[in-house]
């Protein structure tokens, strides 16, 4: 290893600015010889660190004010390098720098948890334990992704476990959940979920209620963990975008784009400019339809169905526009590694402009009325408060974090596709309540329309796909996209014909961990909207079971009914 002086010099040349230099120097001071390697490629700085120094390193940097914990990817690289790997992907928001801490983890070595520092890392550690068997010290390890009756030593994402073996070793059984006494006589436990078959993913909240107030909440998820990361390891590079797009039924294109960007980052593929523009255009169209969908659902939960109907009437024009641009209303299917599959024809451009003009007029008229309905405002104001400090500690993303006063937006901070060609604002509200999160989305629709107008006007000519590209094994790539709900980040370790490891992190993964904070102290009637305010998935078939612990009686009511019980007070 090098001496201290020799070490500092490369840090100077590797840092992207004063912020990353300060952080790198701190790490060099604390970890010294435990730093095995430091490299930079584009906006990504990669530090390889011995497992023994990881805790000290994270302790040193977690309080840096603009550091954002984005994802933690575990990977089984025993075949290639004899170790498991942990990739901590952090972001320096103010500098737009990806900071990857790569930690080789030999078999049987335990890692000290970081969940007390970066609170967002809680789920990532549980997931790495479930799927790879990596053990974390200093915390409770419970099941997160895998069901409770999963065999103890079977870790499905290890390379020596085949899909056939998994099918043989695990047959799902009905898990019977036992109602546990809480000890507090007056508290009632209200489970919400777990079935949301129509829109997103099933989620399950347990609300503990005293009278009308929610005193605590718990989230249990991963009901439909589909194992697509394992599946992708057996699919070809250009087949995976279609799988990625099906992660979400509402914002699928952000996933296929993140995936192809990660592969392009790993293999240094230069995407043609026109393709970058088309990607941005389709991404903004997707944001428009998603925000209008959310606005409609939120108004529906508040009992203002007129607003719901009009939001969706306006949204329909965007769906038709999406079909015109891509060939499909949803799951557009045009992202491929190295570009896009479908060009925008000249006569489509004028149709896009026409639709945008009309959209802008109709939307302005609609939100002006909808947000001034007194009951709507009263129900949104001051409910589901998420303080700025908590939003930062949990590394939250999207409109959720921007409603709590932090201007985090991947389009600006870690720019991609064609966003550096356009000017736009990032709407931020500081109140942290449901109204703030609503207004962030309301304003973002105007911004998206403006972005689309600029992109369409500037659309450059040229090819939409690179002529050819080649794979190289074991390269690391990061692709991130600002989805309607917040940052989507994909990490890819490349293989010969397929991704060797593909890690997907959707924005809800980050944001759901903060929902229990928002729920504390709200009225039961405001709970459904508060959960919906981060824009997870919701459907009209949602049902909640109310169990009264004292009498033991059970009744099932649709979630709208809980939501509407308060609407008379507005």
């Amino acid at each position, binding site marked *: 290893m090098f001496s201290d002086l020799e070490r500092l010099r490369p840090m100077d040349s590797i840092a992207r600015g004063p912020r990353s230099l300060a952080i790198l120097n701190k790490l060099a001071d604390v970890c010294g010889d435990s730093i095995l390697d430091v490299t930079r490629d584009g906006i990504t700085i990669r530090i390889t660190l011995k497992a023994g120094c990881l805790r000290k390193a994270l302790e040193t940097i977690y309080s840096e004010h603009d550091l954002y914990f984005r994802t933690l990817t575990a990977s089984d690289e025993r075949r290639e390098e004899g170790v498991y790997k942990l990739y901590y992907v952090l972001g320096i928001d103010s500098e737009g720098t990806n900071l990857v801490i790569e930690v080789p983890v030999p078999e049987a070595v335990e890692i000290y948890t970081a969940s007390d520092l970066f609170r967002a890392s809680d789920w990532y550690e549980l997931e790495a334990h479930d799927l790879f068997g990596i053990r974390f010290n200093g915390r409770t390890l419970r099941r997160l992704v895998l069901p409770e009756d999963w065999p103890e030593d079977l870790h499905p994402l290890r390379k020596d476990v085949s899909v056939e073996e998994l099918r043989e070793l695990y047959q799902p059984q009905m898990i019977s959940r036992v109602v546990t006494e809480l000890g507090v006589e007056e508290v009632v436990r209200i489970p919400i979920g777990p079935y949301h078959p129509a829109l997103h993913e099933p989620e399950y909240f347990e609300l503990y209620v005293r009278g009308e107030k929610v005193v605590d909440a718990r989230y249990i998820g991963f009901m439909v963990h589909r194992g697509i990361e394992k599946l992708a390891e057996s*699919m070809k590079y*250009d*087949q995976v975008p*279609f799988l990625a797009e099906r992660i979400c039924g509402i914002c699928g294109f952000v996933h296929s784009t993140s995936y192809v960007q990660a592969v392009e980052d790993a293999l240094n593929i230069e995407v043609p400019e026109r393709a970058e523009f088309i990607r941005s255009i389709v991404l903004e169209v997707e944001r428009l339809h998603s925000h209008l969908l959310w606005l409609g659902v939120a108004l529906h939960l508040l009992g203002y169905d*007129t607003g719901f109907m009009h939001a969706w009437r306006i949204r329909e024009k965007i769906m*038709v526009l999406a079909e015109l641009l891509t060939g499909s209303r949803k799951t557009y*299917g045009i992202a491929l590694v190295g570009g896009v*599959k479908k060009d925008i024809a000249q006569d489509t451009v004028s149709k896009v402009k026409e639709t945008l003009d009309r959209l802008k007029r109709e939307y302005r008229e609609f939100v002006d*009325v909808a947000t001034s309905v007194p009951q709507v405002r009263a129900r949104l104001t001051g409910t589901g408060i998420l303080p700025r400090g908590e939003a930062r500690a949990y590394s939250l993303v999207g409109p959720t974090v921007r409603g709590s006063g932090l201007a985090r937006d991947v389009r600006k901070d870690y720019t991609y596709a064609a966003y550096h060609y356009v000017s736009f604002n990032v709407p931020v509200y500081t109140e942290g309540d449901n109204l703030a999160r609503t207004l962030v989305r309301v304003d973002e629709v105007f911004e998206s329309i403006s972005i689309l107008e600029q992109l369409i006007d500037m659309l450059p000519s040229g090819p939409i796909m690179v002529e050819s590209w080649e794979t190289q094994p074991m390269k690391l790539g990061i692709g991130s996209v600002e989805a309607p709900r917040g940052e989507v980040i994909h990490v890819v370790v490349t293989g010969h014909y397929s991704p060797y490891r593909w890690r997907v992190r959707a924005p809800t993964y980050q944001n759901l961990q903060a929902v229990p904070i928002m729920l504390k102290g709200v009225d039961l009637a405001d709970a459904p909207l508060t959960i919906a305010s981060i824009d997870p998935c919701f459907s009209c078939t949602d049902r909640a079971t109310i169990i009264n612990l004292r009498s033991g009686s059970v009744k099932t009511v649709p979630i709208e009914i809980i939501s509407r019980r308060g609407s008379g007070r507005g």
Partner: protein
Amino acid sequence: MVKFLRMLAISAREGTATRKYPFESSLVTPEFRGRVDIDPAKCVGCGACVRICPPSALTLNYESDEVVLKYFIGRCIFCGMCAYVCPQDAITITKEFELATPELNDLYDEVVHTAVKCNVCGKPFTTVKLVKEVEKRIDGGDMSPLFNTCPECRRKLTARRVGSGVTGVSVE
């Protein structure tokens, strides 16, 4: 405070937003991607579409005298990748989307090719049309004697030839 009443004026202006489908035409745009259509005259059975198809809706099935390209619409995700990669332009994307049927067989489409059997082991391994197409593209050349040999047997033959070339001993 009565601003919300303005919604009435908007509703009156916009009228009914829904259409009386199926009694009125559907709203499909000219760019819509529906099921695909395979032209049996152009298809040579090369299998490029089968290799790219993300949900495996397209499969090549080797039977004794035939190679059958099967398209199962029930699995199709309408991504159009098959049309995108087809070297013969045999696949077109149609605008058909009304595909529900009580008859499962309606969801299958097939292109039947005559198989070429390996002249060494006798297994069917490719189609007559593909062999002709390759011949056309490379203009005969040195490879032609091996056209009717399956890849596995070809590998063994080559290994033997190289083996005897190096050692001077013919390997059986």
